[in-house]
């Protein structure tokens, strides 16, 4: 299941709904992305006051569905979830959660990590950070492209 929304989500409630009555599920790997107070991606100790996520309505949902389908085709998952927010967020706010349920924990971990790697490079979101009244677009990271390529077949990289 995928959702794109401006409002916050309740992690406990999302996970309870995902696993409700599904007694074949032995493990649930989850990732939650939070707004950091440090500028950009280099972790410099400067204060970010807020971050606004812009996205491409329609394409976002399409890409999230494709990413989820790819995970479901690669790992034996009982359930999966991607919730991604947009709009203005402040440090500590939740941005995204991914969850993968499986009978086997390594499958759940790998699939959840895969979802995050692909979201970084394939989901049409853009982030603008506010600091000292200045707005700055966050640039894509080379390390995220490298992380995406971890999941390609070796003859394709």
């Amino acid at each position: 299941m995928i959702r794109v929304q401006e409002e916050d989500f309740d992690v406990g409630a999302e996970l309870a709904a995902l696993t409700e009555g599904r007694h074949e599920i032995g493990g649930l790997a989850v990732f939650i992305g939070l707004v950091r107070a440090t500028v950009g991606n280099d972790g410099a100790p400067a204060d970010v006051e807020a971050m606004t996520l812009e996205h491409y309505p329609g394409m976002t949902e399409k890409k999230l569905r494709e990413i989820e389908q790819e995970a479901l085709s690669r790992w034996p998952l009982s359930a999966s979830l991607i919730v991604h927010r947009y709009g203005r967020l402040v440090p500590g706010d939740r941005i995204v959660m991914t969850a993968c349920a499986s009978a086997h924990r390594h499958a759940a971990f790998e699939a959840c990590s895969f979802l995050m790697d692909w979201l970084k490079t394939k989901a049409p979101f853009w982030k603008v950070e506010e600091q000292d009244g200045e707005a700055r677009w966050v640039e894509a990271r080379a390390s995220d492209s490298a992380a995406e390529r971890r999941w390609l077949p070796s003859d394709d990289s």
Partner: protein
Amino acid sequence: MKLLYFAWVKTRIGLAEEEVTPPAEVATVGQLMTWLAGRGPGYAEAFAEPERLRAAVNQDFAKPDATIDAGDEVAFFPPVTGG
């Protein structure tokens, strides 16, 4: 053809979306970028470094050599930063 702009492409051009009718010889994403760059100073600035831009045609990522049709939805934006 419906065009959408995101992030700093949108702020440079000053528009989130518009309808355009490019000439018939504009047949690819790359040719569309060149044509748009000539539409005004904001466009020129937005498309000054095409290698810094990404595109989508009908909500799928598309390379500069992807072909475009009159009824397509084409979007331009910087590399995405999801998650």
